C-alpha cells in the first residue's frame, strides 16, 4: 500500500489545482475570519469584535469554516483525486501496472488524508500568524490555547474535512467523473443543508430531529463546541460534541467504504 500512497502523493503534490484549492481555502479563511472582522470592528453593524481575532480564539477560528465553505474545498479535493482518474481514463493505466483496486484506493485515501491534514494545519498556522499580528497591533495579550486544545482542534478539523473529502471521493467513484460530483456535492453542502436548517427545520419537527443525524449539522456542532463563532454559516451546537464527533467519523467511514466497494465491484470502462 505504501507504493500506492507514494504514487498518489506525487500526483496530489504535482497537481496545480490542489495548490489552488489550498490557496482559496487560505484566502477565504483569512478574509472572513480575520481581515473582515478586523476591518469592520468599528463599524456601526459590527457584531464581531476585534477580540474575536486574538490568539485565544485560534482553535475556533481555524476550524469554523470546515462545516461549509472550507468543507466545499475538501469535497472538491476528494472529487478531483478520484474523479480525475475517470476524466483522464487513467484507472486502466494504473491498474494495468498490476496493483489491486483496493491497494490503489487505500493509497489514494491515505494521500488525501495527508493532504487534508496539510490544509488543516495550514489554516491553523496562517491563523496563528495573523492573530499574532492583530494582537500585536492592538497591544493585546498573547493568550494561546493549550496544546491539548490545539490538538483537539486539529483533530476535529481533519475529521470534518476528511469526511467531506470522502463524500467527494464516493460521489466521483459513483458518478465516474468530476463535473457532476462537484456540482451535486456543492449543491448539498451550500444549498440543501442551508435550506434544511433555515427553512425546513423551523417549520417541521421531524426535519429538525433528522438534522441531528446529518453530516453538516454534526460538523457544525463539533466546531461550535470547540469555540467557533455561531455567526459562522453552518456553525450551531445542535448536539453534544461527543455525538457530533462520532457521527462525523461514522460518515467518513461509510463514505470511504462505499467508495471502495463501488470501485471494486464495477467495471473500469
Amino acid at each position, binding site marked *: 500500500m505504501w507504493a500506492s500512497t507514494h504514487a498518489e502523493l506525487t500526483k496530489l503534490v504535482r497537481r496545480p489545482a490542489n495548490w489552488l484549492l489550498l490557496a482559496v481555502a487560505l484566502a477565504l479563511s483569512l478574509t472572513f475570519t480575520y481581515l473582515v472582522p478586523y476591518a469592520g470592528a468599528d463599524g456601526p453593524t459590527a457584531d464581531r469584535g476585534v477580540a474575536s481575532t486574538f490568539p485565544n480564539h485560534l482553535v475556533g477560528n481555524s476550524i469554523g469554516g470546515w462545516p461549509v465553505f472550507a468543507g466545499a474545498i475538501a469535497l472538491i479535493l476528494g472529487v478531483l483525486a478520484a474523479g480525475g482518474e475517470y476524466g*483522464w481514463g*487513467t484507472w486502466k493505466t494504473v491498474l*494495468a*501496472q*498490476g496493483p489491486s483496486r483496493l491497494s490503489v484506493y487505500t493509497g489514494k485515501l491515505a494521500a488525501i488524508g495527508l493532504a487534508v491534514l496539510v490544509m488543516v494545519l495550514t489554516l491553523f498556522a496562517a491563523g496563528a500568524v495573523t492573530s499574532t499580528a492583530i494582537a500585536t497591533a492592538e497591544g493585546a495579550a498573547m493568550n494561546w490555547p493549550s496544546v491539548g486544545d490545539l490538538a483537539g482542534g486539529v483533530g476535529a478539523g481533519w475529521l470534518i474535512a476528511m469526511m467531506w473529502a470522502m463524500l467527494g471521493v464516493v460521489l466521483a467513484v459513483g458518478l465516474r467523473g468530476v463535473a457532476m460530483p462537484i456540482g451535486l456535492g456543492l449543491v448539498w453542502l451550500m444549498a440543501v443543508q442551508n435550506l434544511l436548517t433555515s427553512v425546513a427545520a423551523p417549520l417541521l419537527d421531524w426535519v429538525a430531529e433528522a438534522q441531528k443525524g446529518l453530516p453538516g449539522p454534526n460538523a457544525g456542532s463539533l466546531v461550535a463546541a470547540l469555540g467557533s463563532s455561531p455567526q459562522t454559516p453552518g456553525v450551531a451546537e445542535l448536539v453534544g460534541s461527543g455525538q457530533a464527533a462520532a457521527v462525523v467519523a461514522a460518515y467518513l467511514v461509510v463514505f470511504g467504504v462505499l467508495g471502495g466497494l463501488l470501485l471494486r465491484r464495477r*467495471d473500469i470502462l
Partner: protein
Amino acid sequence: MFPVETHELTKRYGEHLAVDRVSLTVKSGEIYGFLGPNGAGKTTTLRMLLGLVRPTSGRVRMLGQAPGQLAQIGALIEGPAFYPYLSGRENLRVLARYAGVPARRVEIALELVDLAGRGKDRYSTYSLGMKQRLGVAAALLKDPRLLILDEPTNGLDPAGMADMRALIRRLGAAGSTVVISSHLLGEVQQICDRVGVISQGRLITESTVADLRGGARLRVVADPIDAAAARARALLGGDRVRVDGAGMDLDIPHDRAAWINAELVDAGIAVSELGIRERELEDVFLEMTHVG
C-alpha cells in the same frame, strides 16, 4: 500452459452481447493479432483479460493466473491515458511505483520508444504519436513476458510505425509473447504469427496468417470476361473461378498459366494479362466480417 487462454468468455451489457463465448489461445513466444471491425468486442475482450471488466461468464487465464494478476504483463488498452500535468518521465515514475519496479526501468522504457529526449516535457504538450509511444513505454515498464497492445500504431507517422514494428519484432524475438489488436491489417500481416478474427462478439477464426491468406491465385484479364469466366468454369469448376471487374482470379497452380492462356485463346478470347495475385489479409478479413 498458454500465456493467454480464454474459455467461452462472455460479456453482456443488458440486452447487448458484447463478447459471445470467445475461446482463444495465444501460444508462448508468438505475436498474435486480434482483429475485428469497430465494435466487434476486441477491447472488451482485452479489458476482461486484464481484469478491468468482469466477464458475465467464461474463464480467463493469463500466464496461468486469474485476470488481475499482472506482475509479468504489460498492457496498453484503448489508447494512452496519463496525467496531463506531469511530464512523460514523471508519469512513468508514478506508474513504476504502482508496479513496484525500480526507477531505472523508466529510463530504459523511454529509450525503447525513443522518448528519452522529451521525457521532461509535460504530457499535455505531447503529439498524438508521442502519447502513443509513452503508452507503449508504460506497457514495457515491467519488462513483461506478455505484452498486450491495443492499436499500438495509432497516431504514429510512417517512421514511427516502422519503429514500432521493429520493437514488437524484437520483443517477440527475445521471447516475449505479444498480443496486438489493430485495424491496420497490413501491419498485422507483416508482424503477426497468428491471428484471431472477432466479429459481432464472436471469434470467427483463429489461424496463422499464411493459412488465412491461403495460396496465391492466377489473375487473368481477358475480353470478353464473361466468356472467359464461362470457359474457365467449364475447365476448372465454378468454385475455382472468381470474377472481379475486367478480370478473374483462378484457384490453380501458377505453372498452369500457359495452359489456361492457350485454352482461352483457342476459344476466341483475347487475353491481355496473366499474373500471380496474392490475397491480402485485408481481403480475407473483409470477406470474413462481411464488410465492403
